[in-house]
């Protein structure tokens, strides 16, 4: 029995100490944009429009089981861009008749002639196959990706054009924000996570050439995509996978986060939807790890890329350590110094909650919405334990699916909660 109790303390310590460092590094990463005045100014991208646009754009919008309302809002925003050379490519699967109908209806209603419908004939239903199918229809110098429910800012493409001109890079990652953060605490948490990711973490990674891009509001030189042979059709995290291939070829990515140019998206509202989405991401990360492109990166880049892929799963353990600490304290009565040590991971955990609250303040400020209410802060603080558990559940689910080889595209349903009346009207005019 005593052996078991000692083992419990041992496990507790063995988990606590690495978790402390993981937690502290996560806090460091999350707050990167606020580390110093230099970091803040450098990551605060205010788009400066060049006098003339230089590039033409093709923006792919992959859709599946999508409603006409959501699609028309997305396409409407694209066609209303201030940039003058824009091709919108709606990518639909051949086995999705309703969405096909919607796409053709939109194409028919389009008076600009800039909307193309691309049909994917692949029997595998996932995002990368649709992207690859649409790539062959693209004519622009630059290929952009926009999720089916993303509302792009009118100046987005002009801004991105300028960034391409000024930096000379081949890839630009734009910002995404989740606007329905007041729908539920789940969406609030998701919105903050997106904000931290695009406003801060991505800058840290981009500065070290170890960025894993998202699959939304990303822009590539078309020649580069064709050279790479498009996206990996067997991978659920095709965005992370293509990032690794770009990095291994020595390309840099510029992150451009301007609150005025972010794409507006819908956050999952229910715990169920959130876990589903997160499981899919984790599963994609696991696939990407097993494919092994990250091994081709040099030293520090490799470690950082691996950290990106593993971090969500690793952090899910934080949720488990405190019950363990309490249990081992009451069962084993360890020496005081050891007992205190097992509580140390509480420091980054509390720090993370405080950081979330500051992020909430900064997020509402950046996006010009009303200041966060007290109950929003309360939601953030109180939801922490459940959120930790949801992280753990998604990590475990992904691991189980990975073992089973279950890689179906478990798509998040879009309810159109990010659409406000103004958006829909605009589109009805366009449609």
């Amino acid at each position, binding site marked *: 029995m005593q052996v078991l109790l000692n083992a419990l303390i041992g496990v507790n310590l063995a988990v606590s100490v690495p978790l402390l460092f993981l937690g502290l590094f996560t806090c*460091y990463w999350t*707050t990167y944009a*606020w*580390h*110093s*005045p*230099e970091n*803040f*100014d*450098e990551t*605060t991208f*205010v*788009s*400066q*429009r*060049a*006098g003339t646009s230089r590039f033409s754009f093709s923006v792919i919008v992959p859709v599946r089981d999508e409603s006409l309302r959501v699609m028309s809002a997305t396409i409407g925003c694209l066609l209303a861009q201030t940039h003058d050379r824009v091709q919108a490519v709606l990518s639909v699967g051949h086995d999705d008749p309703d969405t096909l109908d919607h796409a053709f209806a939109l194409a028919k209603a389009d008076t600009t002639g800039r909307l193309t419908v691309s049909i994917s004939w692949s029997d595998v239903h996932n995002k990368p196959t649709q992207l690859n199918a649409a790539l062959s229809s693209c004519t622009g110098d630059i290929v952009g990706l926009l999720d089916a429910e993303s509302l792009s800012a009118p*100046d987005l493409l002009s*801004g991105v054009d*300028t*960034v391409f*001109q*000024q*930096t000379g890079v081949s890839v630009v990652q734009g910002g995404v924000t989740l606007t329905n953060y007041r729908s539920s605490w789940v969406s609030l948490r998701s919105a903050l996570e997106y904000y931290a990711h695009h406003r801060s973490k991505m800058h840290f990674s981009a*500065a070290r050439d170890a960025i894993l891009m998202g699959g939304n509001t990303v822009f590539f030189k078309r020649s580069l995509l064709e050279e790479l042979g498009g996206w990996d059709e067997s991978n659920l995290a095709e965005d992370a996978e293509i990032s690794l291939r770009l990095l291994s070829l020595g390309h840099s990515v*510029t992150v451009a986060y*301007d*609150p*005025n140019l972010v794409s507006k998206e819908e956050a999952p509202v229910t715990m169920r939807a959130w876990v589903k989405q997160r499981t899919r991401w984790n599963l994609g990360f696991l696939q990407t790890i097993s494919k092994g492109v990250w091994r081709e990166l040099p030293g520090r880049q490799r470690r950082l890329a691996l950290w990106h892929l593993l971090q969500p799963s690793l952090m899910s353990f934080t949720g488990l350590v405190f019950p363990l600490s309490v249990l081992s*304290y009451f069962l084993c009565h360890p020496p*005081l110094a050891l*007992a*205190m040590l097992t*509580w140390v991971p*509480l*420091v980054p955990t*509390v*720090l993370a909650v*405080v*950081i979330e*609250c*500051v992020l909430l*303040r*900064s997020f509402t400020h950046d996006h010009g919405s009303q200041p966060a209410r007290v109950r929003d802060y309360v939601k953030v603080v109180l939801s922490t334990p459940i959120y930790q558990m949801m992280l753990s559940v998604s990590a475990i689910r992904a691991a189980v699916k990975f073992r089973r080889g279950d890689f179906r595209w478990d798509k998040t349903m879009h309810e159109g909660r990010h659409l406000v009346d103004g958006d829909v009207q605009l589109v009805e005019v366009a449609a």
Partner: protein
Amino acid sequence: MSTVLDQPSLHVPLHRIPVPKKRWWTADRALGVALAALGATVVAWGLNLFPALLGDEGIYTSQAFSTLHGELTPYTYTYDHPFAGWLQLAPLQGLVRLFAGNDELMVVSGRVVMVAYAFVSLLFVFHIARRLGIRRVYAGLAVLLLTLSPLYITESREVLLDNIALPWVLGAFYLALTPSRRQWLYGLSGMMFGVGVLSKETVVIVLPALAYVIWTRAYRPIRSMSIASFVTLGTMVVLSYPLFALLRNELLPGPRHVSLWSNGIMYQLASRKGSGFVFQPGSARAGLVHQWLALDTVILAVGFGSAVACLFIARVRFIGLAIFLWALPVLKPGGYLPQMYVVLVIPFCALAAAGVVDAVGNGLARTRGSRVTTRLLPVLVAVAAVIGLVNYIPKVRHITTDRGNNQVAVTAQAEAYLKTRITKADNVLVDPSYWGDLVVAGLNHPWQGAIVYYQFDLDPLSSGQYMPQGWQDVDYVVETNEMRDNLTALGLTKLSAAIKHSTVVARFGSGGTLVLVRAVEATPYNQKGVR
């Protein structure tokens, strides 16, 4: 927010621009180290002669000694102060004794450690001044002012928790004044302040001044994040103390155990004997202030005068704020005020003076056609410094060379006598300053051999377990001035009884250093009765 530019500017991320490497060893660093070393030398010079040993010094050194042997205190830890102070003292004191050997009084080893703390504090004073943009000459004079202040030298020699907390507090201010305004430096500042508070809780009084520094100096767009890391990390450090109490099941009062709440917080804030009102002649508070002023009127007068001026100079406003915050408990009627409370304010007084002189220099430089006065200012300050020096020299000489009141020598004699006279089986009630040395000499159990005199009355283990017969269990009492004072102040009735039933067998020193070794009459319970 988008701005329209005609020419696109090349967007090069800052992290790709090579930054010229800053030299670490600069004239400032060299001067700071030199001045702090000078100050530390003055503090060290004759530290075993002056001032007289304070009871608290014995307490902290013996607690540090116990910490090295696995216990926080020789007796029950009563949460009188958080223990971070003597936790730091313990290894350093052990290191000093490694070189000095066991013949050196433990309190003197503790005082040697205080020299190191003084060095770091003085270094921080110089660099805080420099970070405030104060000219090098005035920053240096601030350190010199401290080096020559009898009050500063006297206080910084004593083994006090306040002296241990001081570099942490000054370090927190130094970091908060960071020119790079990095977020994690504010977090570090919070942690340093937290350690300061856990070293001596009274330093928390200057927290608003530190908060003011961060609020006004942090980079506006990232200020909320900077404050968040300061507050969170500082709080987490401080919360480790209640967590410690909680894990020992001593956070809240309960039967048969001490608690942080009742023995720590409520004792210090409510039940400790008050020191009266400062403007009431004869009160303990008035006595303390008089005592401080007697040691050094100049630094306190200059400091408080400058503090008023500081409030009108944005750059150094926080210094004035810190000084007046410090003064609040002094002006408060009632509540306990300890003698060493003054330690915290002295460096701020020096900084305030330097800040004001520098601001006056700036003002003169701005007015036209006053080159003469601009040049004159350093001369005037130098003259003032010389006058001050002449005023100080006798006092400083007294502090560094006075042998007339050599309590350390008397204590050493008394200890030598006791070591030959008593055995492990005797129960000897002694000052905390004797305790560690006698334990090292082999009288090792806290309840047998050397016993701290007030624990005989106050620790529940005394009457409950180890010395149930009261004075009849005692063999010797080593009576000191400190003990005579506390006999009535702490109401030590059992000790009084022991003294009443004793005869003087040896005497050392005289006047304030008088030590009487008293043998208690033979009873069935003490060693004399057994023999």
